[in-house]
């Protein structure tokens, strides 16, 4: 498809600044005409694209019009006034009495799906059923706070509930780092991915939609129709943005219908579809559309804004999205697609490319354990019993409970064959779950031997992975060179992913050993916090020539490296140092001593020995 970028309006400072700037107080007070959503008409992209907050307000309005159809939203923001404000807004727009329930992450199945209320049953001597949270939230809203840490099991149950179309889910994603994301099983099913983390608390609220308008739109919604051209364009835009899931265009269609209902249209108009694309499709983009010659047009534009070449910009800034087009005239079917695509592009935040890359690399789903040590609970194999209240995630072990209660029956005055069981008698089954081992390869990708070493590391990783499912282990690869370290493969068990991530390995440059070690420690630490056991495999010759601050100088660099090594030793992470220099080198041996690492001189390491050695440490 042809994607032509529209020319920039002259005289408008539209380089880096005007677009999707994180709002600062100075900006909000400036006399710039801030985009506010005219109500009930959705905002057309005019001079400035809507602010994130304006988009968030629009999302809330559309969500309120069709809570079930759009399935809900994910809200990426820390806990704070902005999020609270958005939630309050949404709640005010929903009909009175709409269920509004919160799911704690550690909710037991009995509470989520309904089951037997044990304590009440014991007290009453007859079964007392407990209503599940999903049933309580039926045709209402369910909130999932701290969604980035949601266990896969909970996500699976909620996804099933969403598929059944009984409720609307608000995923409150408080993740800070790019690799902390709400479970993708849920994200895929939610229409709106609202990002509030860039919205300042002092940003004016702007025009908020009125609950009456929403209620009226809700009545109009069933009659709203969408033409084939609209449907076709939505699908085409989704393909162009590299969105694989077919749910995305479907959700976009729902959002477009809701927007049409809100605007009082009986048929989805261009503006409605534009809004849907911006809110639903743009945040899901996995690639920028293939543009024939468009970037070339973009670059030499006589743009008054930032003439200075940026030395090391974030890769995303090169692809500065174009302004949203003027949607005034009625478009031809093919043109509609272009308009929608432009709107989606305009809605992408700056640094999109970097974000896309981060997303491609991200951890697929958080490990089921929350932070800290392996979570005790119902997971794993049963291993004995302990006293405890079974109302958490644990199951009452009846036999042991009766055994505990038996000696006290006479004292408690049990009569008539009825046992007297107190809460103190409760015994629950303990379970053990083996912690996963994550082997982190830290590979020296600098200098001339880089290619060779990386190929070996790649082979070892793939061999390890091929057998790792049996051991239930994960593998990660981190390479350092030049002035920095890069996670090439986040901890994974997937061979498919590993192959793809490792297929293009960069090499060459200086040796920032300290930075590499630091990055290794950081990754190991995050593995540990997810409940796994990290081990480090270091492939280096132990020589370093780039210090932590990125400056050259062998002495400083080596001192830094030894310091970083001590930190790893203090953290108590099992380490294997594979000396890759042609002859065993003193530098590497000294590093191994500092790390308290096993030292393996392996001038001609082959993947098989490497994977064997890596498999032995830490066990």
């Amino acid at each position, binding site marked *: 498809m042809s994607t032509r970028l529209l020319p920039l309006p002259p005289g408008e400072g539209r380089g880096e600044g005007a677009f999707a700037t994180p709002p600062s107080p100075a900006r909000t007070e400036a006399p710039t005409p801030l985009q506010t959503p005219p109500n009930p008409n959705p905002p057309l992209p005019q001079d400035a694209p809507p602010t994130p907050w304006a988009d968030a307000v629009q999302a809330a309005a559309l969500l309120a019009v069709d809570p079930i159809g759009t399935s809900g939203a994910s809200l990426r923001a820390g806990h704070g006034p902005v999020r609270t404000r958005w939630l309050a807004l949404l709640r005010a727009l929903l009909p009175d009495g709409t269920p509004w329930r919160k799911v704690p992450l550690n909710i037991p*199945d*009995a509470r989520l*799906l309904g*089951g*037997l209320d*044990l304590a009440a*049953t*014991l007290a009453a001597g*007859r*079964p007392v059923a407990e209503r*599940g949270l999903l049933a309580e939230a039926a045709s209402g809203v369910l909130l999932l706070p701290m969604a980035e840490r949601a266990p*896969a*099991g909970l*996500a*699976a*149950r909620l*996804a*099933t509930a969403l*598929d059944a179309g009984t409720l609307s889910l608000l995923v409150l994603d408080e993740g800070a780092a790019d690799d902390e994301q709400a479970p993708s099983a849920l994200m*895929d099913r939610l229409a709106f991915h609202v990002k509030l983390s860039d919205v300042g608390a002092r940003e004016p609220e702007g025009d908020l939609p009125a609950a009456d308008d929403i209620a009226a739109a809700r009545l109009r919604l*069933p009659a709203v129709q*969408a033409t084939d051209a609209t*449907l*076709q364009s939505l*699908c085409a835009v989704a*393909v162009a943005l590299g969105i*694989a*899931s*077919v*749910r995305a*265009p*479907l959700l976009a*269609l729902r959002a477009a219908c809701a927007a049409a209902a809100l605007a009082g249209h009986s048929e989805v108009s261009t503006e409605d579809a534009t809004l849907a694309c911006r809110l639903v499709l743009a945040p899901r983009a996995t690639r920028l559309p293939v543009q024939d010659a468009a970037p070339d047009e973009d670059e030499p534009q006589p743009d008054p804004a930032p003439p200075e070449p940026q030395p090391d910009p974030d890769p995303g800034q090169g692809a500065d999205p174009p302004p949203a087009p003027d949607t005034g005239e009625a478009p031809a079917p093919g043109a509609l697609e272009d308009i929608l695509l432009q709107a989606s592009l305009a809605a992408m935040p700056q640094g999109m490319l970097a974000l896309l890359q981060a997303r491609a690399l991200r951890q*697929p*789903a958080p490990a*089921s354990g929350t932070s800290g040590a392996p979570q005790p609970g*119902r*997971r*794993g*194999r*049963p291993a004995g019993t302990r006293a405890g209240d*079974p109302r958490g995630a644990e*199951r*009452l*072990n*009846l036999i042991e409970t009766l055994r505990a209660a038996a000696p006290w029956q006479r004292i408690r005055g049990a009569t008539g064959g009825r046992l007297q069981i107190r809460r103190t008698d409760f015994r629950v089954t303990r379970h053990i779950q*083996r912690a996963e081992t994550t082997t982190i390869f830290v590979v020296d990708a600098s200098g001339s031997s880089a290619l060779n070493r990386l190929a070996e590391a790649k082979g070892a990783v*793939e*061999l390890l*992975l091929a057998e*790792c*499912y*049996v051991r*239930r282990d994960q593998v990660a690869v981190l390479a350092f060179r030049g002035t920095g370290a890069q996670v090439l493969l986040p901890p*994974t*068990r*997937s*061979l*498919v*992913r590993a192959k793809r991530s490792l297929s293009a390995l960069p090499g060459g440059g200086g040796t920032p050993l300290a930075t590499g070690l630091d990055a290794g420690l950081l990754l190991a630490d995050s593995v540990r916090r997810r409940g796994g056991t990290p081990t480090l495999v270091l492939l280096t010759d132990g020589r370093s020539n780039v210090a932590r601050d990125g400056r050259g100088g062998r002495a400083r660099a080596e001192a830094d490296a030894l310091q970083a090594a001590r930190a790893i030793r203090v953290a108590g992470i099992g380490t294997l140092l594979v000396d890759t220099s042609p002859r065993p080198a003193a530098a590497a041996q000294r590093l191994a001593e500092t790390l308290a690492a096993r030292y393996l001189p392996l001038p001609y390491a082959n993947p098989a020995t490497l994977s064997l050695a890596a498999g032995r440490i830490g066990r």
Partner: protein
Amino acid sequence: MTTQPARLAPQRDAFPFAAIVGQDEMKQALLIAATDPSIGGVLVFGDRGTGKSTAVRALAALLPPMQAVQGCRYNCDPARPTAWCDDCAARPDHAAHTMPVPVVDLPLGATEDRVVGALDLERALTRGEKAFEPGLLARANRGFLYIDEVNLLEDHLVDLLIDVAASGENVVEREGLSVRHPARFVLVGSGNPEEGELRPQLLDRFGLSVEVRTPEDVPSRIAIVRRRDSYDRDRPAFQQEWSAADAEVRARITAARALLPGVEVDDAVLEQATRLCMALGTDGLRAELTLLRAARALAALDGATAVETSHLTRVAPSALRHRLRRDPLDEAGSTTRVTRAMAEQFGP
């Protein structure tokens, strides 16, 4: 704790099977498994939002209902006394009732109690009886057990499933209970390979494996979105519209089941199957067996009375791609390897 089981069937308003756009290999594999449950299950690997769960749920609604012993918690077949559970063996009266084929969802994070069954706490606490509360495996007997994101399933559950799937019997020895009951089911797993590999032992339990992809062409995607939209807007009307097409598929399954015992496999086809498996170096005989069974089921679905080479080639990728010995350094996917071997064996 006793919780309401997640149960897909009978789902009155499921998406019609016939209305699923594309994904022919997945539909073919599911139909084969429905025709001959002894195939050993279907594994569907692919991206999110490709209609994996929709297809399984749709199949559940489509399958012809089955006869089961009234009051039996394991859905025993009144016509097959050899496969009865202990309860049914002791039962004097085996009155039958018609029930939909069970399709049971095994959610991620399900606990062992819920899967294998456990002491019925409700009855133990209120009536002082020691009773077994059947788990998901019992409910899935003679039906389908569907595991979404099977590759993320926890180890101890995987171990359990491997054993039960192989023996067709669930043995519970816990909490003072000693129970065994039949648990023969078609395992249907789905997942995204990018999120984790499947343990080889479990991989081998699946008879067929299918790779699904989102259709990249815009017209199919439009068709998907349009059908889904009209389904969501008015489910009864949409189902009405597709009921004839669904009935056709149902009739095809019923006819194939009747035809299946009589489908012949001549020696030439048998040899072709063996040669193909040898060329691919698959371990064990399970590959040949599954390949032949699947080809027979497919022939039955086509209304043919003998297996032909074309049936073999149509099922070979599904039956073999997950059984190839893993070579991590071979960049070519398993599907490519199967296709290559087929081209060598049968000519282009």
